[in-house]
């Protein structure tokens, strides 16, 4: 029998997952609290929610014996209880301490997860301790608790649970949730009917003209409207905790699945994709031995199973998808705090929070986005006086947006501040001993400098947070996820960092190209265009090749040269994948383009096998391994060699053929 000391260690993953939910919800409640100054009922609701989050964090931290987290959560809960019971007033210092406490709690839990030393909590404990018993300067309206909702129409709704209903998913929780969407639940309590059955009675207040029966759409709830005159002062609501409408309960209809299990499913689907491709290969070889009439049936079945397999793959992928808003939700607090610290005024706008992205990516993008947002507040936005002097509004705006385009997701962090000063970046880079390309730099080159390891060492130790990552790390993380990063900046008007990521990893559509005997796959999401050009159009520019493309030129990489494979193209024409955007675009030349396939990405973990420019390998079904190209690294390889001067259209004609 396991002892109490180690028994609950097996639940650490559950602990981390649940803590994260509560911390995110707490950050949300803190923002609501901040906005609720002067609104007693909103403040009360936020305090109640916070109280419950800290209470649960205390309990679960105690269970996994993470004492500092338990202790800190306990103190925060204690302070909130004092506020709730009117022993002290919630002051600005109080809400600041709650924010600091929440953040420290998060650090403790993250440090525990990472196995690093836990941050100290003494200072926060002292801060919170001092607050209990203070009555302060926070402007609270002491007028009668104004409940705007009390003026609507009042309903009594009764629900009798049965085993059959519950088996069909209709239970008190669903009823409460649905009623909460229709109006405001002012009371929810169980009753025992004379025949000993149990019913739940909800008192609901809705806006005038709302038809509760209709809105319940089939959920068996007995609804009774009270006549306006019947709005009696309800026999004092049982106990505050018994009233409903808590947002927290929304979690209960969600199934929690260990990510590893989904990974396993995904892997099986991956194997099926390969088996399916092998089957197609075998089928094509037996085709001539099968009578045409039979063959048709075989092919129809094969196509159907193809479609179903794709649907299965998409279904599993959808399960892994979570709204990107999860990354965004903690940002308002970070921005508000950092802005206050830096004496700046910043408004945060969030867009596209519902955009969905693989859970795996969410977890890995949290820190990079956080870093970009922090940078935007500390270095992007000007102090109010500077902004006014430049004819801008004193309040800067940071826009955090997400959008999905095909198989790619774009995350953008934009500010309307200084913009990146190229000269300052170049000077700083030179001071740091970095090699700066000559001539005027384009945005990609500036970004390259910003993201060079060693460009900024100050940022690493920035803030006591301990989770600061430098721009170099941000870029490495994005590229590690087969993503790309771009910079768009205009001095005096602002800066925009654009991160493009594949929606999901593991299985993706790819274009297959051939060079000599070798086949290469390139993720379709990163291919902008496929073009064909005559060998004669290729120009030599120093040691690089370029080809005309649209109004400019495109640096060309021949895979045959890059990987030292004998090309077998004889036609004098090159097939080129165009990758990347703007000045970061490049062309990848292959002998011929075979087609489009669904591929299963297997990363090459063996360092001996790993080659720059190749992100993994796949199996197309004919038993041969195909290398998957890594567009981000290829772009860097070309940049290193080709980022000299790319001529504009006018200069094109003067180049040696």
């Amino acid at each position, binding site marked *: 029998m396991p002892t109490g000391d180690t028994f609950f260690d*097996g639940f650490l993953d559950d602990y981390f997952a649940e803590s994260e939910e509560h911390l995110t919800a707490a950050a949300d409640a803190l923002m609501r609290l901040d906005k609720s100054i002067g609104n007693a009922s909103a403040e009360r609701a936020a305090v109640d929610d916070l109280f419950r989050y800290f209470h649960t964090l205390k309990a679960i931290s105690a269970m996994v014996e993470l004492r500092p987290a338990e202790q800190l959560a306990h103190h925060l809960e204690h302070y909130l209880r004092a506020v709730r019971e009117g022993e002290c007033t919630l002051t600005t210092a109080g809400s600041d301490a709650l924010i600091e406490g929440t953040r420290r709690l998060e650090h403790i839990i993250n440090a525990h997860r990472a196995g690093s030393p836990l941050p100290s909590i003494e200072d926060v404990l002292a801060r919170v301790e001092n607050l209990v018993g203070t009555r302060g300067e926070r402007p609270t309206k002491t007028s009668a608790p104004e409940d705007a909702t009390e003026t609507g129409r009042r309903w009594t709704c009764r629900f009798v649970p049965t085993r059959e209903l519950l088996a069909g998913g209709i239970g*008190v929780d669903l009823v409460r949730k649905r009623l909460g969407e229709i109006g405001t639940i002012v009371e929810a309590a169980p009753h025992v009917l004379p025949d000993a*059955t149990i019913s739940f009675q909800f008192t609901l207040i809705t806006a005038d003209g709302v038809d509760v029966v209709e809105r319940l759409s089939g959920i068996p709830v007995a609804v009774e409207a009270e006549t306006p005159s019947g709005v009696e002062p309800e026999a004092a609501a049982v106990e505050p905790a018994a009233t409903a409408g808590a947002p927290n309960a929304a979690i209960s209809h969600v199934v929690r699945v260990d990510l590893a299990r989904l990974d396993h499913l995904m892997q099986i689907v991956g194997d099926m994709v390969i088996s399916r491709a092998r089957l197609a290969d075998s089928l094509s070889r037996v085709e001539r031995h099968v009578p045409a009439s039979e063959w048709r049936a075989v092919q129809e079945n094969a196509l159907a199973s193809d479609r179903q397999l794709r649907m299965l793959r998409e279904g599993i992928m959808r399960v892994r998808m979570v709204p990107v808003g999860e990354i965004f939700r903690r940002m308002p607090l970070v921005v508000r705090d950092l802005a206050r610290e830096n004496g700046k005024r910043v408004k945060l706008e969030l867009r596209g929070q519902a955009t969905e992205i693989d859970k795996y990516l969410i977890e890995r993008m949290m820190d990079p986005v956080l870093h970009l947002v922090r940078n935007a507040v500390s270095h992007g936005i000007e102090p109010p006086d500077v902004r006014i002097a430049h004819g801008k509004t004193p309040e800067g705006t940071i826009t955090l947006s997400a959008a999905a385009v095909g198989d790619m997701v774009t995350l953008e962090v934009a500010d309307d501040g200084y913009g990146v000063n190229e000269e300052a970046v170049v000077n700083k880079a030179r001071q740091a001993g970095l090699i700066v390309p000559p001539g005027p730099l384009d945005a990609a080159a500036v970004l390259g400098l910003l993201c060079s390891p060693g460009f900024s060492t100050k940022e690493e130790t920035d803030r006591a947070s301990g989770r600061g990552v430098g721009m170099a790390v941000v870029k490495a993380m994005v590229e590690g996820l087969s993503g790309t990063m771009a910079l768009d900046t205009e001095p005096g008007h602002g800066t925009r960092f654009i991160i493009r990521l594949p929606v999901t990893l593991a299985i993706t559509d790819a274009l297959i190209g051939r060079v000599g005997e070798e086949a290469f796959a390139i993720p379709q999401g990163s291919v902008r265009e496929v073009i064909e050009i005559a060998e004669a159009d290729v120009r030599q520019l120093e040691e690089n090749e370029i080809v005309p493309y649209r109004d400019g030129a495109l640096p060309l990489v021949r895979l045959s040269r890059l990987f030292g494979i004998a090309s077998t193209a004889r036609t004098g024409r090159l097939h080129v994948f165009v990758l990347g955007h703007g000045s970061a675009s490049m062309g990848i030349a292959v002998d011929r383009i075979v087609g489009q396939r669904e591929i299963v990405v297997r990363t090459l973990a063996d360092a001996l096998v790993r080659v720059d420019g190749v992100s993994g390998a796949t199996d197309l079904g004919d038993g041969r391994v195909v290398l998957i190209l890594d567009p981000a690294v290829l772009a860097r390889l070309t940049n290193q060699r080709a980022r000299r001067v790319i001529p504009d259209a006018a200069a094109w004609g003067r180049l040696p053929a």
Partner: protein
Amino acid sequence: MHKILIVDDSPTIRKMVRASLQTIESAEFIEASTGLEAIEQLAVARVQLIVLDLNMPDMHGIDVLRFVRRNAHYRSLPIIVLTTRGDETSRQTAKNAGATTYLTKPFAPQTLAQAVRDLLDSAVEATPRA
């Protein structure tokens, strides 16, 4: 078969409670994450024992206790209140409201399992055999 209802708003705690009671023979577990859900489960399933958290959204554990004890059907149903420690006034409140046993979190799995076993045993003894 002993039907045990585990009521806690934290899924992690529910899982821990369940794991702690794995050694109880022929036990079947039902879970609820709010007080209202707990009462719903009481209404539709033959629950033999409740492990009840106090601080929950929707309906406080104390209200669940009071409701259950007011109802003749459930007057003798064993209820273990399992709540976060350091709140000594609530122990008395819980006892007064009808808690059979009062345990605090963090709990040792053996302690909880033993408390459940004791209550199930005494419930069996108290039930006159037909």
